């Protein structure tokens, strides 16, 4: 990116336009400043404009921490470009800081020489001291290394709203649209999508709609007319496959996938859940879509959510529960019941930073071994993980395909980064969607609930069917008949069968693909939301001539049949994870390869350059 020298208002007006292949903008302010809204609007606008986009919101656990404090800072980062993007961007090229706390919390991520737009009205003595500044950074030359633009957003917003009839604090709430308008001018974005949105959103409150529209335009015109800015940027549309697109977050994509699976099977969708960050948006989304025969149950606790899901599966619904790590811990006994009764269901864990309550709004991948092994007894389930926000759609359908095909609970792992991150999603053709055929046995003589087929799968017999009355439960069952059985040989037999049935899933999933050469010096292998950073880092290193390839696991138990083969074709294996080495541990144990980890547990995703640097280090470059 070309950086101009520091500007001041006295310079003559001369706007230069610089073309960028990609750029990253972050909005930061108080949690009540509407930064998430500004960021989402710019995301949609950029996507409609034709850029590839990838986003990451970053908000505090407290809904409204004391105004102006570091604890209350909320941010939204948007990466947009004229080519394929897979992450929300490593370094921030332009930062909008609505107050001193937002500046303090985010400045270290801004690249040297980057664009820094501040709302100077908020740099009062009190706000400076709340943010921990002893001196005003706008005045003491500490920001000389950036392109600083001081904009009195409070005053200019009040000015824009003065004839709208909006008064008091409501005026202050429009400030985010001023900032957005200014950034739209700076990056040459069209106003129309946001104007449409405002009209739809505030249609019943014309005064609010009018004020927001005027403020947005005032911000845009401020950029155009003031002599503050002498450079603006353009980011050309990306070349993406043709089709109809929309923006989805991981939680939205996952919920849409669940509905799609149930609809394709002609089944009601049951979703039992207890509110928990960052999974609650799945519950909210599903509760708004009851017209798809979605039956949401906000349970009294995580255990009730899990056991009600088991009950719904027993009675024939497509049953799902969703939670995050702490909830997963509470559900674990009941997941064992689902394993024993061999009923199909999906358990979504939108992981967050643990242990215990941990960092509720921050991302992490540290529940992998919990998902695979975190229950009493020999207790196998199928474990899947989505790789990108849009991939959550495909993996939700895949989870159900496996659950009903193998009569097993399936754990689907996402994380806070996928859940809240967003990207464009090419809307699939109806014809391309898998049809999920469910077979329930009809009335037969001599029905046996644990009589298995050649894949070791038992029948899904539904209450309401005459002649199939049977009992299931958490006590060990006798093979075939299902009656309670304490015999030692039967227990070992059933434990082995339950494991083998999960292993059999490997026959029904596609092989692991390699990005890059089939063999070489280094394989970088990951799972879940690290896909974007790993794939982009490996691509960059390959362009530099390094012998490195990548592979990404969506199936964690069982793993694909060719995983061992893939691992052994490389001299070294690097496993980047947002934990202390859980996949690496599994790969080493399962395949006896010298896989070594690269770890980050800061509640934040990897940047591309972090992985790029680690690859170079491993290859002694």
């Amino acid at each position, binding site marked *: 990116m070309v950086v101009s020298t520091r500007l001041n208002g006295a310079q003559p007006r001369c706007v230069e336009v610089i073309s960028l292949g990609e750029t990253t903008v972050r909005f930061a302010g108080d949690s009540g400043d509407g930064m998430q809204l500004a960021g989402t609007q710019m995301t*949609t606008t950029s*996507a*409609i404009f*034709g850029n590839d986009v990838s986003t990451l919101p970053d908000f505090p656990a407290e809904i409204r921490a004391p105004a102006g404090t570091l604890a209350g800072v909320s941010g939204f980062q948007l990466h947009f470009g004229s080519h394929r993007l897979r992450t929300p961007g490593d370094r921030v090229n332009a930062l909008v800081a609505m107050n001193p706390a937002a500046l303090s919390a985010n400045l270290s991520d801004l690249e040297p020489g980057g664009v820094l737009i501040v709302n100077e009205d908020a740099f009062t003595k009190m706000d400076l001291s709340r943010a921990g500044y002893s001196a005003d950074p706008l005045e003491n030359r500490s920001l000389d290394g950036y392109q600083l633009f001081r904009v009195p957003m409070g005053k200019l917003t009040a000015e824009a709203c003065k004839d709208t009839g909006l008064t008091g604090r409501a005026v202050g709430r429009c400030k985010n649209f001023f900032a957005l308008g200014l950034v739209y001018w700076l990056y040459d974005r069209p106003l129309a*999508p946001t104007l449409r949105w405002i009209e739809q959103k505030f249609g019943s409150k014309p005064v609010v709609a009018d004020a927001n529209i005027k403020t947005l335009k005032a911000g845009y015109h401020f950029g155009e007319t003031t002599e503050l800015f002498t450079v603006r940027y353009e980011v050309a549309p990306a070349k*993406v*496959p*043709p*089709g*109809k*697109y*929309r*923006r989805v977050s991981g939680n939205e994509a996952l919920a*849409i996938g669940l*509905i*799609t699976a149930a*609809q394709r099977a002609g089944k*009601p969708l*049951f979703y*039992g859940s207890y509110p928990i960050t960052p999974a609650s948006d799945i519950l909210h989304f599903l509760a708004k*879509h*009851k*017209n*798809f*025969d979605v*039956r949401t*149950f906000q*349970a*009294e*606790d995580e*255990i*009730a959510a899990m*056991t*009600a*899901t*088991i*009950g*719904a*599966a*027993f*009675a*024939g*619904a497509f*049953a799902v529960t969703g939670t995050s790590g702490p909830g997963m811990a509470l559900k674990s006994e*009941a997941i*064992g*019941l689902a394993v024993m009764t061999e009923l199909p269901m999906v358990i979504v864990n939108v992981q967050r930073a643990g242990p215990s309550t941990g960092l509720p709004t921050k991302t992490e991948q540290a529940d992998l071994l919990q998902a695979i092994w975190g229950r009493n007894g020999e207790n196998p389930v199928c474990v899947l993980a989505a790789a990108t926000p849009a991939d959550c759609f495909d993996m939700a359908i895949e989870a159900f395909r496996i659950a009903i095909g193998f009569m097993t609970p399936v754990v689907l792992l996402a994380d806070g980064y996928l859940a809240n991150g967003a990207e464009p999603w090419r*809307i699939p053709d109806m014809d391309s969607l898998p049809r999920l055929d469910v077979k329930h046995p009809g009335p037969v003589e001599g029905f046996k609930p644990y009589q298995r087929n050649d894949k070791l799968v038992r029948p899904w017999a539904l*209450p*309401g069917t*005459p*002649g199939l*009355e*049977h*009992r*299931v*439960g*958490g*006590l060990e069952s006798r093979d075939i008949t299902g*009656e309670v059985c304490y015999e030692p040989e039967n227990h070992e037999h059933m434990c082995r069968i339950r494991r083998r049935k999960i292993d059999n899933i490997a026959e029904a999933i596609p092989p692991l693909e390699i990005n890059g050469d089939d063999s070489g010096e280094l394989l970088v292998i990951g799972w879940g939301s690290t896909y974007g950073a790993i794939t982009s880092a490996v691509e960059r290193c390959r362009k530099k001539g390094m012998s490195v390839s990548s592979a990404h696991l969506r199936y964690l138990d069982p793993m694909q049949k060719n995983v061992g083969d893939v691992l052994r074709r490389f001299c070294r294996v690097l496993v980047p994870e947002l934990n202390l080495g859980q996949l690496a541990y599994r790969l080493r144990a399962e395949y006896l390869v010298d896989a070594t980890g690269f770890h980050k547990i800061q509640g934040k995703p990897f940047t591309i350059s972090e992985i790029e640097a680690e690859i170079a280090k491993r290859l002694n470059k």
Partner: protein
Amino acid sequence: MSADAAKVKLELTAKHFASDQDPRWCPGCGDYSILAQVKKVLAKIEAKRENTVFVSGIGCSSRFPYYVGTYGFHGIHGRALAIAVGIKVAQPELSVWVVTGDGDGLSIGGNHLLHTIRRNPDINILLFNNRIYGLTKGQYSPTSPLGKKTKSTPMGSVDFPLHPLSVAIGAEATFVARSIDVNVKHLAYVLERAARHKGASFVEIYQNCNIFNDLAFEYATAKTTKDETTIYLEHGRPLVFGKDRNKGIRLDGMDPEIVELGDGITEDDLLFHNEKQEEPSLAYLLSRMRHPDFPEPMGVFRCVERPVYEDLVMDQINEASRQQPGRLEDLFDEGETWIVE
């Protein structure tokens, strides 16, 4: 058909609800009697095996589903009610019974009991209260009296007990009743009432654990004492009890008191039972009448109408579907879309 023939038929059809498993409760356990009455009631209400599901948690009582020839689900400790709600939401037309105990239902599963009752799904909840942990061999339970000496309370329990019906009424259960394992006629009556109630029916059944807490309810079952220690509730009738039906319950302000009939006190002065009273205070007051201070009420304490959970769930689905039938194309296109050529 003669009365005897009818009885034979009922017993035959009760067998229709047996499973192929032999009950494995201790000989003399009160559970046998309850199982027999439940099967008779299923026959009497002409339940269909395929449309009936028995759900349980963990404990002696929770083995119940294995011994009924309907669909059954033996869950994990305390969670039967949540499993039952899931079944009911997935298939509202099923008849769902939950069998639980004082430990399963009030200790580990206490939370689910409160929340299931307040939601009012059409489920029959049978809580076998023996005031002890039987399956784990004799620890005190949440209904064991203060001072109770058990394996885990050798110097006597220092926990004050919960009273199941007071808890259920506190959560505003729409049907609340009590009976005793050995009073088979009354038990069958109460079970049938519970089955026919639309909404969550909560039935506490005094059940004798002859191994770990024998004779816990002897006061209420022994021929010599039961007329003085229990009082049978009848809707619209005064609360009269005693071997000679010469005692009653009168209200002194907000407090019940025992009075003798005669000497200027007639039945008209007594408290009249009204199971249909929306306001739960009367039912709660009755649930507070406890041995040895009062005769303990048996029968239906409360039976009121309220919308049923699964009906409300399905009403919303039907309404949403009527307003806008669910089409995946519409779902995918929600929000802003754009075309890339």
